[in-house]
Structures are given as structure tokens and as C-alpha cells.
């Protein structure tokens, strides 16, 4: 007796099937994901000229709502909003402030009354962005900048953009993601995007304690061994290892992790010779990746960073567009209803 069938993407799309929130890569069609990449490509060319700004979101207000600290991601969203000519407001809400009595709901309702058009949200609870989009402020475009362990769709898409620009297509690619998959929202979003865009094979490599028990349910092959896991791989994604993992009986030590899973030149050789190396950042040199590899010829880490702004410009533009379309349609419907009620 299911209460309702919930597609993870239903809430992201308006009636015309256009993006009006960007919450997760899960459930989005290949067409929409490709449109995001194509639009991002157009924005890349705008970033290469002297005036990097376009007037697309002029007059719109974007609010950065970061409930978790992150200078890097927040700055890229800020810059992306400015490059779209939007007005941007940064709100760093430490979690303790909300736990002092004002609920997440109330915080957002107060903001909504300031005529915000878009929220960029990072929150420690999985599902926070969905919650906001569905229950609190459905008329404000919500961009998920990372929610708990669930999703980090803009990071995943800028990774896809980077892969496409380096490799041209997804069909024949074998991709391996290495590290703490269990706690990684980036990995989850990457997996959905890769599968939808048609990657041949997606693998995860790590110790059992850092791989979710049911990861195969996402269509992914788990490996404990780097030599086996990297064989035939075209794209390697290394994930950041957080120090806390050593405290919670998940890992014995950084040195053991580095010995087994650290991507150094020797291990890189297990993969295809033209394999590219990626990392969502920030990098822990000597823990998940060796400096020689991070700075080496196969690394595209810096390109990932520079692709971040055009990709975020693209999703912000698309989501704002979808919201605007929906509001237009609602106003039109209200008008029609009013008109049909008028006496002949």
C-alpha cells in the first residue's frame, strides 16, 4: 500500500518537461542532461572573452544558502550568478543558528518574502533540497549545492562536461570512482549521470567499509582491488578522504588507505594509457592521490575547476527559465479562468 509513487525527478520538471529546480541527476532524461552540457558549452565561450557577463538573469535575485561551510563551491556559484547579471545574496547560516529555535522552514519563509528568485542550497541533511523545493518554496528555483550524502548534481555535471570535452562521448567509456563512496554525494550523482549518458561501465573501488552494501542496485560494479578495478578504465575519479573516517571504525589509517588505494604513478599504469584523472576537490595530496599524478599530464583537475562556472551558469539559467515558464503558464491559466467567467 504505497502512499504515492515518487519519481525523484518529477519535482524538478515543469509541465513542459523543462528543468525548474536542479536537485539531483537521478531520473533526468539523457536529453535534459545533454542540454545542460550543450548550454554549458555555450557559456564556456562567453568566459573566454573580455566581458564575461551576459544579461540573461538581470533583475533576478539569487540567494546562496549554505548551511554547511564551503568557500569554494559558494564562490563559484556567486561568480556564476554575477556572470549572468543576477543580484546575489550570500547567507552563511551556521547550523547552530537554526537549532536555536528557528526551523529550516521558517528561515526560508522569511527569505522568500524578500522576493528571491533562486536559492542555491547546501545542507547536511539528505533530502534538504527536495524538502525546500517541494514543501517550502515551490516558486523559487532551487539549485542543490550538496545535500548530506545524497546528491551534488552540479559537481557531477561539471565532471560530465569535462569528460565530454576530453573524450568526446560516453558510450565506450569505463569509469572508476575510487574512495569513500559510502559518504559521497558526488559519487552518487556521478553514477546516475554516467549511466544515463550511456557510459559502458561504471565501477567503484574501495575498502568494504567505505562501499555501500547495496551499491550494485545502482548498476555499479564494486572492487576492493585497484589492479583489477582499474584495468581497462578510461576515466578515474578520485574522491577526497575525510579525516573523520579514521575515528568511526571505518579505516585503520591514512597510510594503509594510501598504500591500497592512493592513486600514484604505478597504480595509474593499471588503467588505459590515455585515461584521464579527475578529482572533485579539495585534494588531499599523499592520501588519495600522489602529487605527480594530480599535477601530471593525465590530470584534468584544473579543467574541472574552470568548467565549474559555465556549468553552474547553465543550470541556473535553465532552472530560472523553467520557473518563469511555469509561472507564465499559471498566470495564463488564471487569466483564462477569469475570462471564461465573464458574462458573454
Amino acid at each position, binding site marked *: 500500500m504505497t502512499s504515492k509513487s515518487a519519481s525523484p525527478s518529477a519535482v524538478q520538471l515543469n509541465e513542459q518537461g523543462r528543468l525548474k529546480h536542479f536537485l539531483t541527476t537521478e531520473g533526468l532524461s539523457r536529453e535534459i542532461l545533454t542540454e545542460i552540457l550543450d548550454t554549458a558549452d555555450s557559456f564556456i565561450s562567453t568566459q573566454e572573452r573580455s566581458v564575461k557577463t551576459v544579461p540573461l538573469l538581470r533583475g533576478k535575485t539569487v540567494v546562496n544558502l549554505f548551511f554547511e561551510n564551503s568557500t569554494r563551491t559558494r564562490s563559484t556559484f556567486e561568480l556564476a550568478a554575477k556572470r549572468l547579471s543576477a543580484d546575489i545574496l550570500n547567507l552563511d547560516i551556521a547550523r547552530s543558528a537554526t537549532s536555536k529555535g528557528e526551523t*529550516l522552514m521558517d528561515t526560508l519563509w522569511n527569505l522568500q518574502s524578500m522576493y528571491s528568485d533562486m536559492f542555491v542550497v547546501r545542507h547536511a541533511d539528505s533530502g534538504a533540497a527536495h524538502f525546500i523545493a517541494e514543501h517550502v518554496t515551490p516558486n523559487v528555483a532551487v539549485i542543490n549545492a550538496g545535500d*548530506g550524502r545524497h546528491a551534488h548534481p552540479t559537481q557531477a555535471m561539471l565532471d560530465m562536461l569535462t569528460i565530454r570535452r576530453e573524450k568526446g562521448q560516453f558510450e565506450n567509456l569505463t569509469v572508476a570512482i575510487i574512495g569513500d563512496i559510502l559518504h559521497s554525494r558526488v559519487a552518487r550523482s556521478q553514477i546516475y549521470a554516467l549511466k544515463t549518458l550511456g557510459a559502458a561501465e561504471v565501477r567503484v573501488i574501495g575498502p568494504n567499509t567505505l562501499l555501500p552494501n547495496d551499491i550494485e542496485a*545502482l548498476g555499479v560494479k564494486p572492487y576492493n582491488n585497484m589492479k583489477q578495478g582499474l584495468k581497462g578504465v578510461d576515466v578515474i575519479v578520485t574522491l577526497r578522504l575525510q579525516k573523520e573516517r579514521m575515528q568511526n571504525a571505518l579505516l585503520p589509517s591514512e597510510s594503509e588507505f594510501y598504500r591500497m588505494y592512493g592513486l600514484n604513478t604505478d597504480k595509474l599504469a593499471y588503467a588505459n594509457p590515455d585515461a584521464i584523472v579527475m578529482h572533485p576537490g579539495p585534494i588531499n595530496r599523499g592520501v588519495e592521490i600522489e602529487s605527480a599524478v594530480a599535477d601530471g599530464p593525465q590530470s584534468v583537475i584544473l579543467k574541472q575547476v574552470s568548467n565549474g562556472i559555465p556549468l553552474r551558469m547553465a543550470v541556473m539559467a535553465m532552472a530560472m527559465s523553467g520557473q518563469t515558464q511555469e509561472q507564465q503558464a499559471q498566470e495564463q491559466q488564471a487569466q483564462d479562468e477569469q475570462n471564461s467567467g465573464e458574462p458573454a
Partner: protein
Amino acid sequence: MKLHPQHRIQILGGTVIDPQSGLHAVKDVFIENDTIVAIGTKPQDFQVEKTIDASGQLVLPGFIDLCAFLAEPGFAQKGSIASETRAAAHNGITTLCCAPDTKPVIDSSAVANLIKDRAQQAGNVRVLPLGALSAGLEGEQLSNMNGLKEAGCVALTNMDAPMRDSRVVMQCYHYAAGVGVPVMITPLDKALADVGCMHQGPTSTKLGLAGIPESAETVALAQHLLLIEQTGVKAHFNRISSGRALAMITDAKAKGLNVTADVALGNLCFIDEDILGFDSAMHVVPPYRSEADRQALLAGVNAGELAICSNHRPHEIAAKMAPFAASEAGISVLDSFAAVLMNLVKRGDLTLEAAVKAVTQTPAAILDRELGSLRVGALADVVVISAEQDVVVEKAALQSKGTNNPWIGQALNGKVSATLCAGHVVFEAE
């Protein structure tokens, strides 16, 4: 709610189902004061004061709910004894065991007596308090078990609060066995459960939500079974959630251990996949597990192994208006209890006999009380219910203060026409 002091009531033309006596036939039922005086033939000189027409409907023993949170004392915005018991009466429940995690906790006779008084004032259903197993439910020290037993607590439980360690558990059981009061246990290993908020499985992996593995229930269950055996305490497993746990309990019974178990109604209806989309309405304790677990639990009910309780836990709107893990756990069940139960029968998940038994004969035996049966001489706890009629529970018609009822607006099968508690009509449909 006015009590109708009718002394002689007849219930005519209904299909009487009483699992305890094996009766399943169209019979008239005759009640005088608080007792069933006849089934079938009207007694001589029976001056009827009230007639209830039960033609085309079922006449069942009043339902017994082994676990419901009534929110009073301490949680006025979520519910009250009056409102929640009224919801229960509307749904055919005549006896209800109320959970001790109120504020203050039911760990003193004062609180137990307060609850009994409030319930009596409300006059809806018979409320039997469950007392706290440990002082303050803190899991550290023994509660005043004898005092609680004398104040009317039918069993003691630590609900969902953890016990400090297995030694404290053993001490509590040992003491309880001596006092002669039964214990109710919801097995959960807190360390394995960690910060989990839903069943650990493919769905929790997809949603990025921390999961409670099945082993959190079964590891604790294994421990409890051995301690029960060691101490000889009378024990009942309350709200089990996995097929594996049920299998372990069935095994233990086969080997001679006298234990019983129940399942929450919600766990017979919902599974972990219902949480897709981060629906905080589905955030409950114990969690909804896999479809295989749900099927195993249904089979357990059909085999007569399990009672069904409501696990009712009402909440105000704000409690659920948060991202999943931050929302408060619990669903409001009492307003839909009868309809949902009958709906499971209609869908073929449960047989009618098994469903009725699970809310009458089985819980009565667990409580070791003369309840849950329609026999001559029995207490007149009766519910008249139409299994043919659809009922849609609308928000405006809710009796419970809790808005977190997941069945609002759904057409379910099973409309209660009348509920009698000890011969008093506590609910009658228009």
C-alpha cells in the same frame, strides 16, 4: 462524549466472528449492562432499550491495541488522551495499551493513575498503561516495577530508548520476573542502528540516508531471547520489523520458550521504497523494511503468530516539515485503524479470520486478560463493522490531533458502525 446508560442492547443480523470460540455465523447478540448475556436466541423477558442493526455487517470482539502513544501528559500539541482515545473508539478499539514515553514518563504510580483517570473521564476506551522498564526510560536503573504493577501497568517496556548494556537488561528482567510483571521489548542494538533513520538497503543507499541494518534488530533479539530464557521473565516482542526476527521468535517458541510478538499495522502496509522522494510521512520507528520482510510479517499474522498493534504516534505539522532525518518519527494510525485492517483483507494480504484474531484473541492472550472474545458471559466489548463499505478519511473528520496520517483522502475498506466498550456505546456512526 456522552455515555449511553442503556442496560439492554441487542445487535441484530450481523455475522459474528469470534476466533476464540471458533464462531463464524449470522447471530444476534444480546447485552445486559456490561456483559454479553446471549448469542443467537433472545433471552426471555429481555426488555430491549437499544437496537443496533448489523445486517450485512460483521460483529467482532472489540479490538485490542497493544501499543499506542497518547501524547498526554506532556505533548499537548500532538494529542491528548481524550482525542486519541476518541479516534480509537471510532475505529473499533475498546482496549488500548498506552506507551510510557510521555512527559513525565510512566515510571511512577502517580503518572499511571493520572492516565487511568483521564481515560476514564474521556470515557472512550479502556486504557491500560505500559510502565517504564527503567527509571525515566534512561536505561540505567530499575524502575519501581512493583509500584507500577500495582498502579495498573500491564507490562513494562523501555520503548525505543536504549538500555545501557546487557547487564542492565538482565537485571531488569530478573527483577521483573520476581515481581511478576511482564516485559515488552522492541529489540534494537543501538550501536548497529547508529544514526540510521530508515531500513538499510538499496533505497537508503540511493537516498543517501543512514540505514538501520536488519542485524540491529536480530542481534539485539538474540541477546534478549537468551536473557529471557535465563531469567524466566514473561516477555513479549513489540513491533518487530523483519522476517528474520519473526523466524528467530518462531524458532524459540518451537524450542519451548514462552514468548509472543506483535507487528505494527504500518509495517504490513509500507516498505522502504515508499520513502523514495524523501517523504517524511514514512519516517517511523521501527522502520519499514523490504517487501520480503512485509510478506514474511503478513504470513506471520496469517499463521496466527503475531498480534497487530497500531504503533500510533500523532504529530503536529511542524514535526514532519523538515528534511527526512530531521523530521520526527511516527504516523498517526488510530483514525484509520479499522479501515486499513479491513483493506488488507480485501486486498488478499490477510485472511479475515487471521486479521480479526490478530487484534482480538491474540493480544488478549498476550495480556492474559479475559478480553477479545464474544462468548456468553464475556465483557461486552463489541465492534460492528461493514467490510463492504468504502470509507475515506478526510482531514476535517480526523479525531486524533495528529495530522501525520498517511491514509488521508484514500478510499479504504471498512466502516465502523458502532463500538461498544463494556456495554457502553462509545461510538455510533450517523
